Protein backbone atom coordinates (compact mmCIF):
# COMPACT_ATOMS: atom_id res chain seq x y z
CA UNK A 1 0.00 0.00 0.00
CA UNK A 2 2.98 2.28 0.06
CA UNK A 3 4.56 1.68 -3.34
CA UNK A 4 4.66 5.29 -4.39
CA UNK A 5 5.80 6.84 -1.16
CA UNK A 6 9.29 8.27 -0.98
CA UNK A 7 11.94 6.62 1.16
CA UNK A 8 11.78 9.50 3.59
CA UNK A 9 8.09 8.85 4.10
CA UNK A 10 8.75 5.15 4.71
CA UNK A 11 11.13 6.20 7.41
CA UNK A 12 9.08 8.89 9.07
CA UNK A 13 5.74 7.07 9.17
CA UNK A 14 7.08 4.63 11.77
CA UNK A 15 8.01 7.43 14.13
CA UNK A 16 4.65 9.00 14.85
CA UNK A 17 1.76 8.39 12.49
CA UNK A 18 2.21 4.60 12.39
CA UNK A 19 4.18 4.19 15.57
CA UNK A 20 4.27 0.41 16.03
CA UNK A 21 3.55 0.46 19.76
CA UNK A 22 1.22 3.38 20.19
CA UNK A 23 -0.66 3.31 16.91
CA UNK A 24 -0.46 -0.22 15.55
CA UNK A 25 -0.54 -1.86 19.00
CA UNK A 26 2.23 -4.32 18.20
CA UNK A 27 4.96 -5.61 20.48
CA UNK A 28 3.13 -5.06 23.73
CA UNK A 29 4.95 -7.79 25.66
CA UNK A 30 8.47 -6.33 25.42
CA UNK A 31 7.10 -2.82 25.82
CA UNK A 32 5.59 -3.68 29.17
CA UNK A 33 8.43 -5.87 30.32
CA UNK A 34 11.55 -3.83 29.64
CA UNK A 35 10.24 -0.33 30.25
CA UNK A 36 11.25 -0.38 33.92
CA UNK A 37 14.35 1.68 33.23
CA UNK A 38 15.41 3.98 30.42
CA UNK A 39 18.69 2.12 30.00
CA UNK A 40 16.86 -1.16 29.36
CA UNK A 41 14.51 0.60 27.00
CA UNK A 42 17.35 2.04 24.94
CA UNK A 43 19.17 -1.28 24.87
CA UNK A 44 16.07 -3.22 23.90
CA UNK A 45 15.16 -0.61 21.31
CA UNK A 46 18.57 -0.76 19.66
CA UNK A 47 18.62 -4.57 19.66
CA UNK A 48 15.14 -4.80 18.16
CA UNK A 49 15.91 -2.09 15.59
CA UNK A 50 19.00 -3.94 14.37
CA UNK A 51 17.03 -7.18 14.04
CA UNK A 52 14.17 -5.35 12.35
CA UNK A 53 16.39 -3.66 9.76
CA UNK A 54 18.39 -6.79 8.96
CA UNK A 55 15.37 -9.07 8.73
CA UNK A 56 13.42 -6.54 6.66
CA UNK A 57 16.29 -6.22 4.18
CA UNK A 58 16.89 -9.96 3.87
CA UNK A 59 13.21 -10.85 3.63
CA UNK A 60 12.66 -8.12 1.08
CA UNK A 61 15.62 -9.34 -0.98
CA UNK A 62 14.30 -12.89 -0.86
CA UNK A 63 10.65 -12.00 -1.37
CA UNK A 64 10.53 -13.44 -4.89
CA UNK A 65 12.32 -16.66 -3.86
CA UNK A 66 10.24 -17.59 -0.81
CA UNK A 67 7.08 -19.50 -1.79
CA UNK A 68 4.12 -17.77 -0.21
CA UNK A 69 2.82 -20.94 1.45
CA UNK A 70 5.84 -21.37 3.66
CA UNK A 71 6.67 -17.69 4.05
CA UNK A 72 5.92 -17.52 7.79
CA UNK A 73 8.37 -20.31 8.76
CA UNK A 74 10.92 -18.79 6.38
CA UNK A 75 10.51 -15.36 7.99
CA UNK A 76 10.84 -16.89 11.44
CA UNK A 77 14.12 -18.57 10.52
CA UNK A 78 15.55 -15.33 9.14
CA UNK A 79 14.43 -13.38 12.21
CA UNK A 80 15.65 -16.03 14.66
CA UNK A 81 19.09 -16.03 13.02
CA UNK A 82 19.48 -12.29 13.44
CA UNK A 83 18.18 -12.44 16.99
CA UNK A 84 20.80 -15.06 17.80
CA UNK A 85 23.53 -12.88 16.30
CA UNK A 86 22.37 -9.84 18.28
CA UNK A 87 22.07 -11.93 21.43
CA UNK A 88 25.65 -13.15 21.08
CA UNK A 89 26.91 -9.62 20.45
CA UNK A 90 25.08 -8.27 23.49
CA UNK A 91 26.40 -11.09 25.66
CA UNK A 92 29.93 -10.35 24.53
CA UNK A 93 29.96 -6.56 24.65
CA UNK A 94 27.21 -5.45 27.07
CA UNK A 95 26.80 -8.32 29.56
CA UNK A 96 24.96 -6.07 32.03
CA UNK A 97 22.25 -5.45 29.46
CA UNK A 98 22.03 -9.16 28.76
CA UNK A 99 21.34 -9.78 32.45
CA UNK A 100 18.82 -6.96 32.62
CA UNK A 101 16.83 -8.04 29.57
CA UNK A 102 17.09 -11.75 30.36
CA UNK A 103 14.66 -13.90 28.45
CA UNK A 104 13.21 -10.90 26.61
CA UNK A 105 16.31 -10.69 24.42
CA UNK A 106 15.78 -14.06 22.68
CA UNK A 107 12.07 -13.32 22.71
CA UNK A 108 12.63 -10.59 20.11
CA UNK A 109 12.04 -13.53 17.75
CA UNK A 110 8.35 -13.53 18.54
CA UNK A 111 8.09 -9.75 18.80
CA UNK A 112 4.96 -8.98 16.81
CA UNK A 113 6.53 -5.87 15.30
CA UNK A 114 9.24 -7.74 13.45
CA UNK A 115 7.09 -10.51 12.04
CA UNK A 116 4.33 -8.00 11.46
CA UNK A 117 6.54 -5.75 9.35
CA UNK A 118 7.94 -8.74 7.48
CA UNK A 119 4.42 -9.86 6.67
CA UNK A 120 2.87 -6.46 6.03
CA UNK A 121 5.74 -4.63 4.37
CA UNK A 122 9.05 -6.33 3.61
CA UNK A 123 7.44 -9.29 1.85
CA UNK A 124 5.89 -6.93 -0.71
CA UNK A 125 8.28 -4.02 -1.12
CA UNK A 126 11.77 -3.41 -2.54
CA UNK A 127 14.91 -3.57 -0.42
CA UNK A 128 15.58 0.14 0.05
CA UNK A 129 12.01 0.90 1.12
CA UNK A 130 12.10 -2.04 3.52
CA UNK A 131 15.34 -0.78 5.02
CA UNK A 132 13.83 2.59 5.80
CA UNK A 133 10.60 1.04 6.99
CA UNK A 134 12.63 -1.10 9.42
CA UNK A 135 14.68 1.87 10.58
CA UNK A 136 11.61 4.03 11.12
CA UNK A 137 9.63 1.34 12.89
CA UNK A 138 12.64 0.46 15.04
CA UNK A 139 13.17 4.04 16.10
CA UNK A 140 9.43 4.43 16.68
CA UNK A 141 9.51 1.36 18.92
CA UNK A 142 12.54 2.69 20.78
CA UNK A 143 10.85 6.07 21.17
CA UNK A 144 7.70 4.53 22.65
CA UNK A 145 9.81 2.40 24.98
CA UNK A 146 11.76 5.43 26.16
CA UNK A 147 8.58 7.41 26.82
CA UNK A 148 7.15 4.56 28.89
CA UNK A 149 10.43 3.92 30.66
CA UNK A 150 10.98 7.58 31.52
CA UNK A 151 7.64 7.76 33.28
CA UNK A 152 8.07 4.44 35.04
CA UNK A 153 11.68 4.96 36.10
CA UNK A 154 11.17 8.46 37.48
CA UNK A 155 8.00 7.61 39.40
CA UNK A 156 8.80 4.01 40.25
CA UNK A 157 12.51 4.11 41.05
CA UNK A 158 13.15 7.81 41.63
CA UNK A 159 16.07 7.69 39.20
CA UNK A 160 16.75 8.62 35.60
CA UNK A 161 19.12 6.84 33.21
CA UNK A 162 20.29 4.62 36.07
CA UNK A 163 22.95 2.18 34.85
CA UNK A 164 23.44 3.97 31.53
CA UNK A 165 27.19 3.43 31.95
CA UNK A 166 26.74 -0.20 30.86
CA UNK A 167 25.77 1.14 27.42
CA UNK A 168 28.12 4.11 27.19
CA UNK A 169 31.02 1.89 28.24
CA UNK A 170 31.00 0.70 24.62
CA UNK A 171 32.33 4.13 23.70
CA UNK A 172 34.72 4.27 26.63
CA UNK A 173 32.58 6.55 28.81
CA UNK A 174 31.81 5.22 32.27
CA UNK A 175 31.77 8.35 34.38
CA UNK A 176 28.04 9.11 34.03
CA UNK A 177 25.88 6.63 35.90
CA UNK A 178 22.52 8.40 35.92
CA UNK A 179 20.67 10.71 38.29
CA UNK A 180 19.05 9.88 41.57
CA UNK A 181 16.09 12.18 41.84
CA UNK A 182 14.38 11.41 45.12
CA UNK A 183 13.99 8.85 47.89
CA UNK A 184 10.94 6.66 48.55
CA UNK A 185 9.62 6.18 45.02
CA UNK A 186 6.26 4.54 44.27
CA UNK A 187 7.58 1.03 43.74
CA UNK A 188 4.44 -0.45 42.25
CA UNK A 189 4.98 1.53 39.05
CA UNK A 190 8.04 -0.53 38.14
CA UNK A 191 6.18 -3.74 38.96
CA UNK A 192 3.71 -5.44 36.65
CA UNK A 193 0.54 -3.46 37.48
CA UNK A 194 2.36 -0.18 36.93
CA UNK A 195 3.40 -1.37 33.49
CA UNK A 196 -0.18 -1.91 32.41
CA UNK A 197 -1.29 1.33 34.04
CA UNK A 198 1.38 3.54 32.48
CA UNK A 199 0.93 1.88 29.10
CA UNK A 200 -2.81 2.48 29.28
CA UNK A 201 -2.35 6.13 30.14
CA UNK A 202 0.31 6.69 27.48
CA UNK A 203 -1.99 5.05 24.91
CA UNK A 204 -4.83 7.31 26.02
CA UNK A 205 -2.58 10.33 25.59
CA UNK A 206 -1.52 9.15 22.12
CA UNK A 207 -5.19 8.71 21.23
CA UNK A 208 -5.95 12.18 22.47
CA UNK A 209 -3.22 13.65 20.30
CA UNK A 210 -4.29 11.62 17.28
CA UNK A 211 -7.86 12.66 17.84
CA UNK A 212 -6.83 16.30 17.78
CA UNK A 213 -5.30 15.72 14.37
CA UNK A 214 -8.36 13.94 13.06
CA UNK A 215 -6.73 10.51 12.92
CA UNK A 216 -8.53 7.33 14.00
CA UNK A 217 -7.47 6.09 17.41
CA UNK A 218 -5.54 2.90 17.95
CA UNK A 219 -7.94 0.06 18.51
CA UNK A 220 -7.46 -3.55 19.35
CA UNK A 221 -10.04 -5.61 17.56
CA UNK A 222 -9.84 -9.32 18.05
CA UNK A 223 -6.68 -10.58 16.48
CA UNK A 224 -5.70 -7.40 14.71
CA UNK A 225 -2.78 -7.00 17.02
CA UNK A 226 -1.41 -10.33 15.95
CA UNK A 227 0.79 -10.30 12.84
CA UNK A 228 -0.32 -13.83 12.08
CA UNK A 229 -3.85 -12.59 11.61
CA UNK A 230 -3.59 -12.51 7.84
CA UNK A 231 -1.84 -15.85 7.77
CA UNK A 232 -4.14 -17.82 9.99
CA UNK A 233 -7.86 -18.39 9.89
CA UNK A 234 -8.11 -17.83 13.62
CA UNK A 235 -8.18 -14.13 12.98
CA UNK A 236 -11.85 -14.46 12.22
CA UNK A 237 -12.56 -15.22 15.90
CA UNK A 238 -12.54 -11.58 16.80
CA UNK A 239 -14.37 -10.36 13.73
CA UNK A 240 -11.96 -8.57 11.42
CA UNK A 241 -9.73 -10.87 9.41
CA UNK A 242 -7.48 -8.19 7.99
CA UNK A 243 -3.78 -7.89 8.64
CA UNK A 244 -2.46 -5.53 11.26
CA UNK A 245 -2.22 -2.57 8.90
CA UNK A 246 -3.64 0.61 10.33
CA UNK A 247 -5.29 1.62 7.09
CA UNK A 248 -7.50 -1.42 7.18
CA UNK A 249 -8.40 -0.94 10.82
CA UNK A 250 -9.53 2.56 10.03
CA UNK A 251 -12.27 1.32 7.69
Amino acid at each position, binding site marked *: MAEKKSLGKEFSKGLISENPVLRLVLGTC*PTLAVSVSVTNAIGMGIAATIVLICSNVVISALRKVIPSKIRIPAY*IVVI*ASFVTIVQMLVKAFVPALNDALGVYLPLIVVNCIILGRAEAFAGKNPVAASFFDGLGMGIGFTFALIVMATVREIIGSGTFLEGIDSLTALFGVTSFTGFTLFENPIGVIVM*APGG*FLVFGLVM*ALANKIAEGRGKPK*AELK*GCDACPMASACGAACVGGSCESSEKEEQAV
Partner: protein
Amino acid sequence: MIAIFLTVVLTENYVLCQFLGICPFLGVSKKLNTAVGMSVAVIFVMALATAATYPINKYLLVKNGLEYLQTIVFILVIAALVQFVEIVLKKFIPSLYQALGIYLPLITTNCAVLGVVLLNVESGYNFAQSMVNSVGAGVGFMIAMIMFAGVRERLEGNDIPKSLQGFPSTLIAASLVSLSFQGFSGIVENIFA
Protein backbone atom coordinates in the same frame (compact mmCIF):
# COMPACT_ATOMS: atom_id res chain seq x y z
CA MET B 1 7.40 -29.73 42.59
CA ILE B 2 4.23 -28.27 44.09
CA ALA B 3 6.22 -25.17 44.89
CA ILE B 4 7.21 -24.77 41.24
CA PHE B 5 3.62 -25.21 40.19
CA LEU B 6 2.19 -22.71 42.65
CA THR B 7 4.95 -20.22 41.95
CA VAL B 8 4.34 -20.21 38.24
CA VAL B 9 0.56 -20.13 38.60
CA LEU B 10 0.27 -17.47 41.27
CA THR B 11 3.32 -15.45 42.17
CA GLU B 12 5.06 -15.49 38.82
CA ASN B 13 2.03 -15.69 36.60
CA TYR B 14 3.37 -15.41 33.06
CA VAL B 15 0.78 -12.99 31.83
CA LEU B 16 0.22 -10.75 34.80
CA CYS B 17 3.67 -10.69 36.36
CA GLN B 18 6.13 -11.48 33.59
CA PHE B 19 4.38 -9.97 30.59
CA LEU B 20 4.58 -13.05 28.42
CA GLY B 21 1.70 -13.73 26.08
CA ILE B 22 0.14 -10.29 26.36
CA CYS B 23 -1.05 -10.23 22.75
CA PRO B 24 -3.52 -13.12 23.07
CA PHE B 25 -4.32 -11.99 26.61
CA LEU B 26 -5.57 -8.67 25.32
CA GLY B 27 -6.73 -9.89 21.94
CA VAL B 28 -8.74 -13.01 22.64
CA SER B 29 -10.07 -12.23 26.11
CA LYS B 30 -13.18 -10.45 24.92
CA LYS B 31 -15.46 -13.42 25.39
CA LEU B 32 -15.30 -16.11 28.02
CA ASN B 33 -15.62 -19.10 25.67
CA THR B 34 -12.86 -18.00 23.28
CA ALA B 35 -10.67 -17.27 26.30
CA VAL B 36 -11.15 -20.81 27.57
CA GLY B 37 -10.51 -22.35 24.15
CA MET B 38 -7.33 -20.37 23.67
CA SER B 39 -6.06 -21.24 27.15
CA VAL B 40 -6.65 -24.95 26.71
CA ALA B 41 -4.76 -24.83 23.42
CA VAL B 42 -1.91 -22.96 25.13
CA ILE B 43 -1.63 -25.50 27.97
CA PHE B 44 -1.59 -28.27 25.41
CA VAL B 45 1.09 -26.71 23.21
CA MET B 46 3.24 -25.62 26.17
CA ALA B 47 3.33 -29.16 27.54
CA LEU B 48 4.08 -30.66 24.13
CA ALA B 49 6.71 -28.05 23.31
CA THR B 50 8.51 -28.71 26.56
CA ALA B 51 8.35 -32.46 26.06
CA ALA B 52 9.84 -32.02 22.58
CA THR B 53 12.47 -29.39 23.26
CA TYR B 54 13.86 -30.83 26.49
CA PRO B 55 15.44 -33.92 24.88
CA ILE B 56 16.53 -31.92 21.84
CA ASN B 57 18.28 -29.41 24.05
CA LYS B 58 19.88 -31.99 26.33
CA TYR B 59 20.99 -34.64 23.86
CA LEU B 60 21.56 -32.61 20.73
CA LEU B 61 22.46 -29.03 21.54
CA VAL B 62 24.24 -29.21 24.89
CA LYS B 63 26.10 -32.37 23.94
CA ASN B 64 27.52 -30.76 20.83
CA GLY B 65 28.14 -27.36 22.40
CA LEU B 66 25.50 -25.69 20.27
CA GLU B 67 23.55 -23.94 23.03
CA TYR B 68 23.66 -20.68 21.12
CA LEU B 69 21.29 -22.17 18.55
CA GLN B 70 18.58 -22.63 21.18
CA THR B 71 16.42 -19.73 20.04
CA ILE B 72 16.35 -20.79 16.40
CA VAL B 73 15.87 -24.47 17.12
CA PHE B 74 13.15 -23.94 19.72
CA ILE B 75 11.06 -21.61 17.61
CA LEU B 76 11.30 -24.00 14.67
CA VAL B 77 10.36 -26.96 16.84
CA ILE B 78 7.38 -25.06 18.22
CA ALA B 79 6.27 -23.96 14.75
CA ALA B 80 6.61 -27.45 13.33
CA LEU B 81 4.93 -28.97 16.36
CA VAL B 82 1.93 -26.69 16.12
CA GLN B 83 1.50 -27.55 12.45
CA PHE B 84 1.88 -31.23 13.22
CA VAL B 85 -0.63 -31.14 16.07
CA GLU B 86 -3.06 -29.34 13.82
CA ILE B 87 -2.79 -31.96 11.08
CA VAL B 88 -3.03 -34.88 13.50
CA LEU B 89 -6.05 -33.43 15.30
CA LYS B 90 -7.78 -32.70 12.01
CA LYS B 91 -7.31 -36.27 10.86
CA PHE B 92 -7.92 -38.27 14.02
CA ILE B 93 -9.83 -36.22 16.58
CA PRO B 94 -11.99 -33.85 14.53
CA SER B 95 -14.11 -32.88 17.53
CA LEU B 96 -11.08 -31.62 19.43
CA TYR B 97 -9.86 -29.92 16.27
CA GLN B 98 -13.16 -28.11 16.03
CA ALA B 99 -12.68 -26.83 19.54
CA LEU B 100 -8.99 -25.95 19.51
CA GLY B 101 -8.00 -25.84 15.85
CA ILE B 102 -8.54 -22.18 15.20
CA TYR B 103 -6.36 -21.17 18.12
CA LEU B 104 -3.38 -23.31 17.23
CA PRO B 105 -1.74 -21.18 14.51
CA LEU B 106 -1.92 -18.16 16.80
CA ILE B 107 0.19 -19.93 19.36
CA THR B 108 3.28 -20.28 17.19
CA THR B 109 4.19 -16.68 17.78
CA ASN B 110 2.93 -16.57 21.34
CA CYS B 111 5.89 -15.44 23.36
CA ALA B 112 4.66 -17.34 26.40
CA VAL B 113 5.36 -20.66 24.70
CA LEU B 114 8.87 -19.78 23.58
CA GLY B 115 9.36 -18.04 26.91
CA VAL B 116 8.45 -21.07 29.00
CA VAL B 117 10.78 -23.29 26.99
CA LEU B 118 13.69 -20.84 27.29
CA LEU B 119 13.05 -20.23 30.99
CA ASN B 120 13.00 -23.98 31.67
CA VAL B 121 16.48 -24.24 30.19
CA GLU B 122 17.66 -21.12 32.00
CA SER B 123 16.42 -22.32 35.38
CA GLY B 124 18.14 -25.68 34.90
CA TYR B 125 15.00 -27.71 35.57
CA ASN B 126 15.04 -31.46 34.97
CA PHE B 127 12.44 -33.08 32.75
CA ALA B 128 9.73 -33.52 35.39
CA GLN B 129 10.25 -30.03 36.77
CA SER B 130 10.13 -28.57 33.26
CA MET B 131 6.85 -30.31 32.55
CA VAL B 132 5.33 -29.10 35.83
CA ASN B 133 6.53 -25.59 35.12
CA SER B 134 5.06 -25.61 31.61
CA VAL B 135 1.68 -26.96 32.63
CA GLY B 136 1.65 -24.53 35.54
CA ALA B 137 2.44 -21.66 33.21
CA GLY B 138 -0.43 -22.76 31.00
CA VAL B 139 -2.82 -23.02 33.94
CA GLY B 140 -1.70 -19.59 35.11
CA PHE B 141 -2.39 -18.26 31.63
CA MET B 142 -5.84 -19.81 31.77
CA ILE B 143 -6.67 -18.30 35.16
CA ALA B 144 -5.55 -14.88 33.98
CA MET B 145 -7.51 -15.18 30.73
CA ILE B 146 -10.71 -16.29 32.42
CA MET B 147 -10.52 -13.67 35.14
CA PHE B 148 -9.82 -10.97 32.66
CA ALA B 149 -12.52 -12.08 30.23
CA GLY B 150 -14.97 -11.70 33.10
CA VAL B 151 -13.68 -8.23 33.88
CA ARG B 152 -13.91 -7.21 30.25
CA GLU B 153 -17.45 -8.41 29.81
CA ARG B 154 -18.38 -6.07 32.64
CA LEU B 155 -16.38 -3.27 31.10
CA GLU B 156 -18.30 -3.38 27.82
CA GLY B 157 -20.84 -0.64 27.47
CA ASN B 158 -19.55 1.45 30.33
CA ASP B 159 -19.33 5.15 29.84
CA ILE B 160 -15.66 6.09 29.76
CA PRO B 161 -13.86 9.22 28.52
CA LYS B 162 -13.36 9.08 24.78
CA SER B 163 -9.60 8.86 24.62
CA LEU B 164 -9.62 6.08 27.21
CA GLN B 165 -12.11 3.95 25.33
CA GLY B 166 -11.02 0.61 23.97
CA PHE B 167 -7.43 -0.35 24.40
CA PRO B 168 -6.31 2.07 27.15
CA SER B 169 -9.21 1.14 29.44
CA THR B 170 -8.46 -2.54 28.82
CA LEU B 171 -4.88 -1.96 29.90
CA ILE B 172 -5.93 -0.15 33.04
CA ALA B 173 -8.30 -3.00 33.88
CA ALA B 174 -5.40 -5.41 33.30
CA SER B 175 -3.36 -3.32 35.69
CA LEU B 176 -5.93 -3.81 38.44
CA VAL B 177 -6.16 -7.56 37.81
CA SER B 178 -2.38 -7.72 37.89
CA LEU B 179 -2.35 -5.76 41.14
CA SER B 180 -4.51 -8.40 42.75
CA PHE B 181 -1.97 -11.03 41.74
CA GLN B 182 0.78 -9.04 43.43
CA GLY B 183 -0.99 -9.98 46.65
CA PHE B 184 0.25 -13.53 46.19
CA SER B 185 3.91 -12.53 46.36
CA GLY B 186 5.70 -14.32 49.12
CA ILE B 187 2.89 -16.79 49.69
CA VAL B 188 4.69 -19.77 48.19
CA GLU B 189 7.92 -19.14 50.05
CA ASN B 190 5.99 -18.95 53.29
CA ILE B 191 4.02 -22.15 52.71
CA PHE B 192 7.12 -24.17 51.95
CA ALA B 193 9.48 -22.43 54.31
